[in-house]
């Protein structure tokens, strides 16, 4: 008897949903919360309150084959809360490290965040660097090329963003969603590549298994 294929989902048309934890890190007042607010609700508040804690929101990004659901943890940027950051980046599959293009110190701080993530976070974490407040080009002190070179060196996704104008906001999340490993095979998630450090150069797809839900 010929029978092609085993049982599949009766409505085999929907892609699966992968859930990922994403954390935003960076100096205070660089616009982490504004980026999230723009991404999740499409809003921008000129005077966004300072985050004292870790805000939590979810947002879904639909890709061709899969749907990526982000659990976003927007952390407090103030230095005194630094020691609490690991609570949020531990177990995160993605991080956006944000700096303010009009403030050199925030870029320096961003690089130390990247170092900390590379050292302490999951080895397969996808890190994106966001140069926010790109709408304030006339006050720019961090050059695009400088940040891009740094990002390339460290295998980071990089975009200059503006929560105010929405420039590149969806794009950076989308880029992360695309870069996140989505295991196509079910059942063997998380077994391969555990603990392997990936050298992520352009075009190289991470192979380590962060399990899709």
């Amino acid at each position: 008897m010929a029978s092609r294929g085993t049982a599949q989902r009766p409505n085999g048309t929907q892609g699966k949903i992968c859930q990922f934890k994403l954390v935003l890190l960076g100096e205070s007042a660089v616009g982490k919360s504004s980026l999230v607010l723009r991404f999740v609700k499409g809003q921008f508040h000129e005077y966004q309150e300072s985050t004292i804690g870790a805000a939590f929101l979810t947002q879904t990004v639909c890709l061709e084959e899969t749907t990526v659901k982000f659990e976003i943890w927007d952390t407090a940027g103030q230095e005194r809360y630094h020691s609490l950051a690991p609570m949020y980046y531990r177990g995160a599959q993605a991080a956006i490290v944000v700096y303010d293009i009009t403030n050199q110190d925030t870029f320096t701080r961003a690089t130390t965040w990247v170092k900390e993530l590379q050292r302490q976070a999951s080895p397969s974490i996808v890190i994106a660097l966001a140069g926010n407040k790109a709408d304030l080009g006339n006050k720019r002190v961090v050059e695009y090329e400088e940040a891009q070179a740094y990002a390339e060196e460290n295998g980071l996704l990089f975009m200059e963003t503006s929560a105010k104008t929405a420039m590149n906001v969806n794009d950076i999340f989308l880029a992360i969603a695309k870069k996140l490993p989505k295991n196509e095979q079910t059942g063997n998630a998380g077994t391969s590549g555990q603990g392997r450090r990936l050298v992520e150069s352009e075009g190289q797809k991470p192979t380590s298994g962060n399990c899709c839900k």
Partner: protein
Amino acid sequence: MSTPEQLAIVQSKFTTGETVVIAMEAKLCQGWLKSTRLIAVVNKGSTSALVVLITSRNPPQVYSDLTIEKILPIDQDFQCNIGTDEEQQDVTDVFLNVTCRKTRTIFEMRPGIAATNLVSAIFQAIDVYQKNKNPTTDFLWIQKLTGSVRSLDISGDQEETISDPIVDLESQDINISRRNIATGKTPIAPRESVVRYQMACKEDDYTYTKNFRLFIGTWNVNGQPPIGITLQKWLSCDEEPPDIYAIGFQELDLSKEAFLFNDTPREEEWRHIVSRSLHPDANYEQIALVRLVGMMLIVFTQTAHLPHIKNVCVDTVGTGIMGKMGNKGGVAVSCTIHNTSVCFINAHLAAHSEEYERRNQDFADICARLHFSTYAPSKGFKDHDQIYWLGDLNYRITEMDAFRAKQFLAGGNLLPVLKLDQLEQQRKLGKVFQGFHEADITFKPTYKYDPGTDNWDSSEKGRAPAWCDRVLWKGEAINSIAYRSHPELKISDHKPVSSIFDSQVRVIDVAKYRKIHEDLMKKLDKLENEFLPQVTVDTTEVIFETLRFDEPCSKELIVANTGQVPVEFEFIKKLDDASYCKDWLSITPYTDFIEPGQKCDIKLEVRVDKRSAWKLNSGADQLYDILVLHLVNGKDIFITVTGTYERSCFGCSMEALIHIPVPIREVPAGRIMELENSKNLSQDPYSVPKEIWLLVDRLYRHGIKTPGLFETQGLHSEVLAIRDWLDVGSQDAMPGSVHSVAEALLLLLDSTPEPLIPYNLHSQCLSATASYLQCKQIVMQLPEIRRTVFLYICAFLQELLNHTQDNGLDAKTLASLFGSFFLRDLPRARDDRIHRSRTIQPTFDRKKAAFVYHFLINDQSDFIGR
């Protein structure tokens, strides 16, 4: 939930005659929420209904724990589909998709025997209804039950509006307590299943129909091998190539071997010839072949459609000898073409002219027993959008003699004969093929011919001709284009029949699908974000101005629920910390619920006591803590607690105190820290800390004859006044009663970082208690300052004991008291101590007392001399 007791509780909701067949727990899926329900199949007479009950307690204990929420009559309007989430291999939840009165309800069940039983009970009830076709009046008992719940329109004329589950969620009548959402008692459904369900509801919005031409063919070949023939005249006689072929054979092989071993070379012979006879203008690919003894069904598709044909599975049902064997019965192929599920069934029903009831029964058996078991639980044939039924159904003409029938037929007058066709008659009576359609028959009967000819059967039996070979269909958007026989093929006593259909298949418009899918996701995101717990706190900085040793101070933190759902909050541990706050802080309550619009006052109390003071003095800790206020399923808020600690001699080590010649408040905090860490010690330390001396001296002068000294509690306020007197320095006399002074002395000894006799010597002390000499040797080993203080206090105690007539003290009491201070247990051992207290602790305490006792009753002048 199928124990007899529980079934009895459910039964108690119904009256006599109404029988609860089965009941089980399931989750009612409403949008992205799931709530627990009991679903039960209840029957009365030959009618059944699916009953949905709300349980206030799970499992229900008494009658009143259950409320009937909905009753769905299992009648012509009732549809039930099963779906699963096979991609998650370990948790295969079963989805029961019930449509009744145009309302779709979806339940999620744990797979297992219970779920299987429930599903089969439902399908059995459907079958029973299909047989009886009870009038609506039979269902009146349901109306009586629902009277108090919701009036149910039995006639089904009135349509309930199709409810968008998301709208349901936002509406008020949602039956789920919001608290359950926040506490996670009602698990937020995994999105995937919700999305799949939601997308299924919106199918019309993102699908369009596409015409598929189907060729359905059936032929009883009477066991003849396909030698020297081709089938083009049957299979490719039309101009347009069909998209799908479903070709059924009966009596493929009449040999005993085929019957007993279900093995025949004919399968491949016929498959081969069929595949060579398909329409030449298209390329075909076989998608399934299924055979049971002589019944074989092959399905082909044009190669181009192959990627869109999924979920192909097959099943067979034998209804022959003993109702089981494969000489009669059906074989079936189920598949999904694009987004439309299709089932092809090739049947060979019971033979013999008079046996039409047997044929009806075979049909019903095939319907009931066909299960595509690769679905879990198995999918019945009814769960398809389109069903094509072909085969040798064997219905005859009995009410007209063969001669007369042949006369009509010879004259091309089919109608008088067709009228007497058993299948036509039985269908009209609703006994078989309910809901199926058949195209008008315009061809001569296909049975029975002399093989090799177009002549009617000339054997002795002289059977009346009959339309044994038929094609019927069920489902929407199926157009019959042709229905004919193919007399050119003569090897059998049957002629082949074929039918052409133009069927509308739902195809997903990928762009629309994405758009709707994305919108749905956004809607779910929005909902999920809106329903996140939200609170505001009145402050994130709690500042305690001045904190003194052993003087508790508290502040309030107000947490207000400003969101839409109840909030459960909890102060959580930071990373690898042992506790959610420092040991000098206590939070009450540290976890609680807050209803929307309500608030909660949280008391933060700081108390620097003997356990924490020394850490503040030595710089090992500071009055600074960041609390993480976590909202369950939501965000975290950081609360910073700070305070200024007024340093005190309490909590200082003896080693530091002897280097402080002035009241401690006059010494900068940094200096104390230096001394605590043995840095920059002064040249000329005291031999005994002045605070010890001051306290002992006070007691010596004013308390030596006080009855109950060290046995009577002092006043806490006086102890605090003594603390200030010591810390600030004063010309006035020391405040407080001698009892408070005594307590201050003990507290001073108790708040040092380490007990007077260092921890590392404790076990030695305890094992030396039998010998004064050994005890003395240990004391000799003590660091000088400790030894001096130890002997100083012992000397004072000896002095006290010289006045026992006045103060009533005895050496054993004092030894026991001071033993517990000199040899204080490790604070970490607090947990152990609870365990130890009943058994070993008294022994430890006795040994400590015994150790000190030696120094209270023996002359120590030799010590002091040194």
